[in-house]
């Protein structure tokens, strides 16, 4: 259905259903803008822009005499590039193959006493620390043990720190030597 949306008959019930005066005034504004004339000389300016782009767009161009043989030249150039790239690659490949065939394979000898896959000390030796100097360890003198019969004097109560400590010391009687014995 190739219809115009502003023609009520053509666009069916759509425009008829919602053709309020409010929305139609809005569409009137849009239609007014849609009908605005293009500025004078627009086509000329577009033509000029296209011409300038055409001129500046071609940076590299075939020379005029070669332009007649454009397709042949393009094909030949493409073939030459492919030939050079493929030939270069083949040359490098064959050169590497020959070099590998002529030389014997070098095997690096592993040091003795080394398990395969382990690390070696690389001949390093341990050097003791000499700068701090040797330290003399003195024997610890022990005090003679007290005789078994002698009883220890009763522990003196600790100096009272606060009132609570004093009350505690008052509540718990200190151990006194038994006078009956």
């Amino acid at each position, binding site marked *: *259905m*190739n*219809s*115009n*949306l*502003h023609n009520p008959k053509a*666009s*069916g019930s*759509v*425009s008829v*259903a*919602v*053709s*309020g005066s*409010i*929305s139609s*005034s*809005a*569409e009137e*504004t*849009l*239609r*007014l*803008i*849609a*009908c*605005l*004339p*293009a*500025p004078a000389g*627009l*086509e000329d*300016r*577009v*033509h000029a*822009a*296209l011409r300038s*782009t*055409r001129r500046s767009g071609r940076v590299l161009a075939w020379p005029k005499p070669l*332009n007649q043989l*454009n397709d042949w030249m393009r094909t030949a150039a493409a073939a030459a590039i492919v030939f050079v790239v493929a030939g270069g690659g083949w040359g490098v490949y064959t050169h590497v193959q020959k070099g590998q065939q002529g030389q014997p394979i070098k095997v690096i000898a592993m040091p003795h006493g080394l398990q395969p896959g382990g690390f070696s000390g690389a001949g390093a030796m341990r050097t003791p620390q000499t700068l701090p100097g040797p330290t003399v360890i003195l024997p610890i003198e022990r005090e003679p043990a007290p005789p078994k019969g002698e009883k220890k004097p009763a522990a003196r109560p600790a100096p009272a720190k606060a009132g609570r400590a004093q009350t505690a010391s008052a509540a718990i009687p200190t151990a006194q030597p038994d006078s009956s014995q």
Partner: protein
Amino acid sequence: MEIPKSAVNDESRRRAEDAALAALVDRYAGALYRVAFSVLRNAADAEDAVQEAFLRVLRHRHSLGEIRDHRVWLIRIVWNIVLDRKRRAKTRPETDDVDELARVLPSAGLSALQLSAAAEHHSHVLACVDRLPPKERQVLVLSAFDELTSVEISSILGITESSVRSRLFRARNLMAGLLDHERSLR
């Protein structure tokens, strides 16, 4: 705009393409400008968009013969350009629509006061159009072009014709609501 098959020579083929492109410019530059202006609402930006559209055509001028409907094809190109520009222009400060509209709208038979009032009214309506959801707004703007049918609008937007109709229905309802709300606030 068919390029003749006899144009086998490169030079003559190029000339034929140039002639076809020049004919497209002469024929459709004005329509493209109006489409661009309806979205951008700025004369210089719209003209830039038209030039950019034809530069894109220049890049694809070899395939001009394959295009069925050049008008719809060109409008679709310029439509994408202006939407892209509009998206990028959101970061820039908006141009004063009232002044621009007063400058471009037809002023025959109107006093300066009437012209100013009309420009303000149109600017107010366009502000409401801008508040519509993008899909509905696009259909509403394109439907204002008398020369575009619903099939052509669907082709430009890449949707079905029934979608065009339903979106237009929604757009008109939303516009009525927006304008009614604005009037009640005044």
